[in-house]
């Protein structure tokens, strides 16, 4: 185990180095560079350099098996890098409007990104814990970044308390697993006896910790409050990045450790059902757009959990089948993350100074006031709803097909019911935007147009949604790869 650190090892974590390095650089530059746009530019450069650095990493495991660099982690590095790039771009106008410091903000986003990167490629539980902590601690600070807002303080405090609680669960789980098996390395856990009680307890605690991160019911209570109080670009990050990273780890544990595969199946089944209903029923009664989207984000985590539950099923050709369920989960995470960043970016622009205009009623007449914002918002909502020609439809279709192939008929039915419930509140927003008239004149400080940077983000997201919905073959080629997750079993 005492092998020296080699160059390929370092190249495999180059993205994390790049993200952290640019983050530190931003902190150092802060006293000297007062120009926000320059900082934005550097941060965006950092995000993209980190993402592109994945090209240098040779496939294989690094640091004696702590980190696994395969197609799977490559996919998630790209996803996370793209999300943080878009979030940084969308934050530019937000920071100007709310008069917040840019350098620390971007640095924290990049640190969180690096943590998510570690989470996506971790092959060992303590490494994963480090990644989780890196992303979580940056997130706690980001949630309370609007210091003067009471809601932001509440958001940060809640997130911090409940988050640390969940992290503690995760750590206890690791300790128990280590106590039983003598290892925290996933590839060595693969041969562990699946019926041990202590191991099961450990796996349960790990599941609870990660369930908190992906906002699966019944660990989702914090989500609406935290999402509502956090600065909206940060909400965009929360709903996409940490979620994708935590799902990446869940799926990797699930794929490698047989004990988890058999034991977690019913847990995923129940979590998926609960999460879908908690999210959709909660969203039905919301009057604040940001909260509504927060609940919708819970519901979408539920759909991904359906795909995870579908992974377990063993058919005559288990390999082929499992890869389809992975593909469904990955495709869905990709499409949902992008759409979520887009919707929250629009919400961030529509909120106006101090995020005051976030009621559903404030959207009334948006179709005539801001045709571009209304049209793109509608398209993204339709993607969340799962209407054809958008990415969301194909994503749902893949999950649905995967569930049916695994004979999870009831779960598939529950998912269909939830899609119908979901269509109500998404359509409600569209109806308000186009078919209601705003009562009285608009307040003078209400936003009139989208900022240039936000429009760029939204355009990218809309094009990506249509691209994934109309020509998904390239992405499918990646996620359907048989050797997606290289296990060192």
């Amino acid at each position, binding site marked *: 185990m005492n092998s020296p650190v080699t160059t390929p090892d370092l190249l495999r974590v180059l993205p994390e180095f790049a993200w952290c390095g640019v983050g530190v650089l931003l902190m150092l530059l802060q006293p000297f560079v007062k120009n926000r746009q320059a900082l934005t530019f550097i941060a965006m450069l950092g995000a993209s350099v980190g993402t592109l650095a994945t090209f240098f990493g040779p496939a294989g495991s690094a640091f004696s098996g702590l980190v696994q660099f395969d197609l799977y982690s490559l996919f998630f590095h790209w996803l996370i890098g793209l999300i943080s790039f878009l979030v940084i771009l969308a934050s530019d106008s937000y920071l100007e409007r709310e008069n917040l410091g840019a350098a620390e903000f971007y640095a924290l986003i990049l640190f969180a990104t690096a943590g998510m990167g570690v989470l996506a490629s971790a092959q060992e539980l303590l490494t994963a814990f480090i990644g989780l902590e890196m992303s979580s601690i940056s997130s706690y600070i980001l949630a309370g970044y609007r210091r003067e807002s009471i809601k932001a303080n509440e958001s940060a405090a809640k997130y911090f308390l409940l988050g640390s609680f969940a992290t503690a669960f995760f750590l206890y789980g690791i300790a128990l697993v280590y106590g039983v098996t003598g290892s925290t390395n996933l590839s060595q856990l693969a041969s562990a006896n699946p019926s041990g009680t202590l191991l099961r307890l450990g796996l349960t605690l790990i599941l609870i910790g990660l369930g908190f991160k992906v906002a699966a019911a019944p660990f989702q209570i914090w989500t609406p409050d935290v999402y509502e109080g956090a600065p909206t670009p940060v909400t965009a990050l929360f709903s996409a990045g940490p979620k994708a990273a935590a799902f990446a780890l869940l799926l990797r544990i699930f794929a490698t450790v047989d004990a988890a595969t058999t034991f977690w199946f019913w847990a995923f089944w129940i979590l998926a059902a609960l999460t879908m209903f908690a999210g959709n029923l909660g969203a039905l009664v919301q009057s604040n757009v940001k909260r509504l989207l927060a609940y919708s984000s819970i519901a979408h985590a539920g759909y991904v959990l359906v795909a995870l539950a579908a992974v377990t099923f063993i058919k005559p050709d288990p390999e082929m089948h499992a890869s*389809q369920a992975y*593909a469904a989960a990955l495709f869905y995470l990709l499409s949902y993350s992008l759409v979520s960043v887009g919707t929250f970016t629009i919400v961030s622009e529509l909120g106006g100074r101090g995020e005051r205009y976030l009621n559903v009623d404030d959207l009334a007449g948006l*179709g*005539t006031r801001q045709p571009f914002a209304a049209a793109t918002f509608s398209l993204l909502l*339709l993607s969340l709803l799962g*209407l*054809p*020609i958008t990415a969301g439809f*194909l994503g749902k*279709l893949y999950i*649905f*097909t995967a569930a*049916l*192939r695994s004979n999870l008929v009831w779960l*598939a039915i529950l998912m*269909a019911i939830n*899609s*119908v419930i979901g*269509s*109500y509140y998404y*359509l409600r927003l569209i*109806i308000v935007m*186009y*078919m*209601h008239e705003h009562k009285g004149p608009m307040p003078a400080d209400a936003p009139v147009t989208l900022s240039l940077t936000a429009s760029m983000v939204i355009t990218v997201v809309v094009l990506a949604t249509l691209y994934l919905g109309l020509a*998904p*073959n390239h992405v*499918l*080629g990646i996620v*359907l790869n048989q050797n997606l997750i290289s296990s060192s079993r």
Partner: protein
Amino acid sequence: MPALSGNLLTVLVFFPLFGALAVLLLRNEDHLWIRRLSLVVGIVEFLLSFLPVWAIPPGSTGFKLEVFYPWIHSPRINFHLGADGISIFLVHLITLLTPIGILASWNEIKHRVKEFHIMLLLLEVSVIGIFLSLDLFVFFLFWEFGLIPLAFLIGIWGHERRLYAAIKFLIYTMGGSTFMLVGIIWLYNMTGSFDFVAIQGLIQQGYLSFSPRTEMLLFLSFFIAFAIKVPLFPFHTWLPDAHTEAPTAGSVDLAGVLLKTGAYGIIRFCLPLFPNASHRAAPWVAVLAIISIIYGALVALVQPNLKRLVAYSSVSHMGFVVLGIFAFTNIALQGAVFLMIAHGISTGALFLLVGMLYERRHTFEITEFGGLATPMPRYAAYFLFAVLSSLGLPLLNGFIGEFLVLLGVYQVHWKWAAWAATGVILSACYLLWAYQRVFFGAITHQKNRDLGREPTREVGARDHVFPDALAGVARALLHAALRLLLPGNSAGDASQRDARSRGARRGRFPCRRTSANFRRKGGVPLR
């Protein structure tokens, strides 16, 4: 012309989409050019829709002019289009009704004109796509895609309770299509294909057979979606609201074509894919269809609202279509297809006429009218023509379809035919009684007395569209061509636009020069 025939249907489906994009590029306030451009797109599409006819000789079987492109690799989805005799006729229907709808909205729609025309064209894309797709996935895609424009048409440009109607429409149809999606995926899991022709081949050659229970469930998953769209008796409640609240063009498209997509789906997918289940379900479906016929007619009989009356008459007539389909005789099926087209034209005409009345009096209540034949004799004549065609007077379009359906049904189940025939009688009752109350008797309202006079003239040039719809394609074309060529319309300068909008504000009919020109060119004299 191999190059053209290879992609003719693709062009046919997507041409209105490009038209919509072109309209999108026009300025918002350029109402006249928006209307003209979409009218041109509609007419060109109408002419295009006749090109496939040469490839489909009468009596031929199978799909012609097939388009086949691999689209998504996993699951394997192909962009597969094809036309046969049934689908191409229904395509003609929508391409005919779209330009008529644009003309009918020329003065009715005054706000958000650009969006309105884009929605009409998008609706056309979706409906043509529904009729031509041979891949279940592509079919579903167009099916879902069509909901949004129609919901917008009802929800933005409709009457007082438009939001309620739009949401009800959306929830009903989306609920139905969820079932269909489940069925499609189920079918895919069994066959590994979304291709209708391939699945049909598997079934016919005996490679694929369902257990009775599976087949019935699959049949139901498709049938419920289609029954909601038709609409069949217990699923019909969205239709009166949607029809009543929609703007005239929306009602015309809804009655003319959207309802037919449901019946078309039953003919195209339910019967060939699940023949045994269809036969087993036939008695139940027939009972529902007969209930639709009689119930729709009885409700229409007591409707105080003229537009709702026409909407319920649709429920009744579509019951005939479904009954004809599920009689499983050739004659009845032909009757059903004929009735679909006939109903599209005659009910479309009724909605246009009712829309004209609303434009002048802003009400649909029958009690508000009475004695209209005196101030508006020509209007009354046209209305009578539409009413007679709708109730199935021999020599008019409604008769042939209903007669064939009854004849075909009688050959297998005379009791069904007997019950359904009461619908013919009832339709005469409610239509003629409504006609009597609206047009005959003493004039009770002063407003009605002035209807035929200036400034709200009786029948404007634009309104001649509806006899065209009845008389058929040729006159509609002629009229549309006239509209475009008329000097009063072709100068799109701002002053004229202003004059028109001023005229509109005074409650005038802003088409005076046009009608004057029309008169000069030998159109129907107006006064």
